[in-house]
């Protein structure tokens, strides 16, 4: 870890003003990813602005039935919140499937969204990585790529976003609130993360001086029947090979509302619009589920190490929808 200057911001205004004036500064939330990356010399900020004293720790009901979640809400608190558990169970499940209890006690909502890829070559300073060292190449493409993506990948980068929480938020039509010295703006969560293209070092739509202050969930009746299914190499404390966040409403055997998002397959939490389009209005049958899953994965491109993800993602979508159909009819 390199030496750095530590600052603590008392309010949002100071935090965004400080970050705007420091060319190589980072916000520090729970530190569960940033500090690791600093220890590995992958992140080398000159200034670290601690934002954990900012008043962004509330979870509040919004008029109209939505929920506003402060960016500094700890993951464990989010997962335990009664409204989250009953109105958006997929979100509580996703959070609880991530990391460990200790990490969830530290990690924040905003930091979770901005965590960086777990690609082995991104983590190794001796390897070529266009994300870490733009223009150096991508050692993962012909290397160990078990955890690499299959959707929206490019010749420059095949890394995945590791968050579980973000996958649930993508399925729930979440909106991210962002603040800077220029003011406040809002963007859909599905537009926060960017696909790699030829600039994999640019990971989000945020400017360097913007701070995530909150995430808002709209009122979403379908979310009451929702699930998160994470598939991984051991029972706990492993990143997703593939994950599915889904919500579905079925009336008279027909899908009347549905949300599906995928994790572990792309540089962003992957909202499965194509699958949703096929499912909406279709009979809630195995056949429809299979068709929707196949259509979503049709554009997938894999490496030898992660070819299985294309099949696994489809199977996991089908299994999750099947389960939601059963749960929904029981409710």
């Amino acid at each position, binding site marked *: *870890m*390199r*030496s750095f200057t530590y600052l603590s911001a008392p309010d949002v205004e100071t935090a965004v003003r400080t970050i705007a004036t420091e060319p190589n500064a980072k916000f520090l939330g729970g530190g569960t990813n940033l500090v690791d990356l600093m220890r590995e*010399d992958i992140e080398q900020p000159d200034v670290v602005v601690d934002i954990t004293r900012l008043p962004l720790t509330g979870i509040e009901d919004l008029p109209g039935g939505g929920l506003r979640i402060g960016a500094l809400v700890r993951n464990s608190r989010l997962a335990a919140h009664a409204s989250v558990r009953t109105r958006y169970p997929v979100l509580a499940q996703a959070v609880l499937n991530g990391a460990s209890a200790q990490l969830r006690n530290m990690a924040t909502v905003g930091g979770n969204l901005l965590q960086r890829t*777990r690609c*082995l*070559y991104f*983590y*190794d300073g*001796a*390897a070529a990585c266009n994300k870490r060292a733009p223009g150096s190449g991508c*050692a993962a493409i*012909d*290397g*160990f790529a078990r955890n690499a993506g299959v959707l929206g990948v490019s010749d420059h980068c095949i890394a995945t976003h590791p968050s579980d929480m973000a996958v649930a938020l993508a399925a729930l039509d979440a909106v991210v609130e962002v603040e800077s010295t220029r003011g406040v703006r809002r963007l859909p969560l599905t537009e926060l993360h960017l696909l790699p293209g030829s600039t994999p070092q640019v990971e989000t739509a945020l400017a360097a001086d913007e701070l995530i202050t909150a995430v808002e969930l709209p009122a979403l009746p379908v979310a009451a029947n929702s699930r998160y299914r994470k*598939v*991984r*190499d*051991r*029972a*706990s*404390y*492993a990143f997703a*090979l593939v994950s599915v966040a889904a919500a579905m409403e079925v009336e008279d055997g027909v899908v009347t509302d549905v949300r599906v998002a995928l994790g572990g397959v792309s540089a962003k939490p992957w909202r499965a619009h194509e699958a949703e389009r096929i499912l909406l209005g279709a009979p809630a049958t195995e056949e429809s589920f299979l068709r929707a899953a196949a259509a979503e994965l049709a554009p997938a491109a894999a490496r030898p190490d992660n070819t*299985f993800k294309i*099949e*696994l993602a489809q*199977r*996991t979508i*089908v*299994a999750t929808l099947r389960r939601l159909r059963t749960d929904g009819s029981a409710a």
Partner: protein
Amino acid sequence: MTTTLPATETAGPVVGRPIDRVDGTAKTTGAARFSAEYPLPDLAHAALVHSTISRGRITAIGTEAAAAVPGVVAVLTHLNAPPLKPAPKVSPLDLSTLASGTSVDYLNTDEVHWDGQPVAVVVADTLDAAREAAGLVTVTYETRPSTVDFAAEEKNAKPQKSTLIMSGAAKKGDAEAALAAAPVSLDLRFTTPTHHHNAIEPHATTAAWDGDRLTVHDGTQSIDWVRTHLALRFGVPAANVRVIAPFVGGGFGGKGMVWPGTILAALAARATGRPVRLMLTREGVYRTVGGRTPSTQRVALGAGTDGRLTALIHTSVTRTGRVGGGPEQVTSQSKHLYAAENILVRQNLVELDLIPNTSMRAPGESIGTYALEASIDELAYRVGVDPIELRMRNEPAVNPIDGKKFAHRMLREAYAQGAERFGWADRTPEPGSMRDGRWLVGMGVASAYHPSWQFTASVTVRLSVDGTVLVRCGFQEMGMGGATAQAQIAADALGVPFEAVRVEYGDSTLPVSPGAGGSMQTASIANSLLAACEKLKRELAALAKRSGSAGLSPAAILAEAGVPSVEAAVGSDTRFGRKAGQLKFMAKFVRDQRRWMKAACGAQFCEVRVDPDTGEVRVSRWVGVFDVGRVINAKTASSQLRGGIVMGIGMALAEETLVDPRTGRIMNPSLAEYHVPVHADIPPIGVGYLDDPDPTMPLGLIGVGEVGITGVAGAIANAVHHATGKRIYDLPITLDKLL
């Protein structure tokens, strides 16, 4: 020391009882000190810089930025490091010559022999400064061609030469001809990847020189080897080196030899004139300590339609490093487990430009039993015989390869007890025939097997007039419960209460103990300890006779005689005495080898659940029943066996060191990316043993450190086959192989 257990409240023998470990309180309260926890005055901290190429020369090394970091004391490279003497040649008469992890002259050469080799050491006032500065050292290399891809180089493997302690090949009859003629035959190929030990305590050394005298606190499995090796490398008499290692946070073989960290800590202390602590990062452990070799294995079986084996062929390819490492006895169990008329085993080796491999829990048998036992299970299906019944039909009366007598063999009884406890009779043999809700359920068995060994150990025992007993022996407590077991043995041998015995260990100033390896430490020390207790009792008897106090308690005899204490010693630690001891050991070893086949064995039973949608495998039940002779401490022995099974579950389902075949660089040197099992992966594990003494071993005990991991991957592979109908030939059994 706890005295609250009922086990110690009642009088009578304590051997066999589940007594709490004597070091338990020290460990749970944090009082036990590990190698990186000794606060020496003026202590400096060291950090390593690792090479990023697998073979070549250092042409330039930039240390200015590192040296400029506040607090940095020295940046040591091959250009300014103190000299180091070369690693010793291996001699069968001095087993400590086996201690070199590699043959490299660290920081005394510009040559690079593996990706990760230490090429510089930064010493600083604080650990943070040392690590920051290490990241600022720049190294320029001239790379040379290297071979690092095991899968590609495997075809160039050469037959392994046989040594006194390990044969490279063995045969009985003509196995290939018998295979060709067999009514039923199979010929299978298996692979296993590189593994790492991942002890919870990363390797650490605290080293301090006082003139020509060196004291090191080192997390080692082998106190005497560290002492001898450091003395040799630094050109000082062995008597000048003191090694202190009472507690070691796990080793599993990874702390059996002397790796660069230990040597470089002492080198840095010598160069800077300050005590130096070098605590490896987890990445540092992967880059500078060898792991388990990968393997490819062929198992071919020929049998009659009744499943009786006529041919058993097991061959392997493993790798070593160009600068060290050794063969691995992958085919060892295949000479002993089945009564085939014709047997052929052969081990082959290929040298690569990678960090040398080293021993890891049951080197050889852990991965060898996977291939053999999966093949036996496959044969059971081919001939339509229950897998346990098939094994019983092939259970030998004498050692199959050479007809030697078994010193002890209760595999039949282990299977019988295990099957009863596990409920094997409820299993329906058809693959895919058992379900629990959406889960596919599978049950599998496999045999466990590990040879039993015994080395020489020096021990002293002193009985004092206050009735206390002091046992002294320089072993280390690595979690196995060695001090507790030896105290139990001494208590019974001398007829004193367990609480009266204190064991002093963990220091090279004590009588020399063999290291922890090969599951032989407890038996080796017990052998000498029992002899020392007999000597002591003879002295006591003589005293009693003289003072007319025969029949009194040991303490009363001393009091009557007016003697404060008596002491007996076994083994000599003088140079001549050690040589004589080694010779004696070799003679006994060879004699035993001719006469007996000595081993631990057991039966592993497991149940797995496989998700039919995703291929995820979860182990849901486990029972292991072991033939390990007499059990000294039912609690610590069970822990060891259970720990072996946990490690085996990791090997079967998740563990794999990713060595990039393009560069030879380990790409997952972290516990986040190298997956050992988490608690949620481990079911309740039932451990049983037959507790029948082996008449050829001291007290009838057989070591339990390694046999627990053997057979585990085989049992899981067999259960997965039972659940899904798919036989997996390549570890780990990850879900993609089951889709």
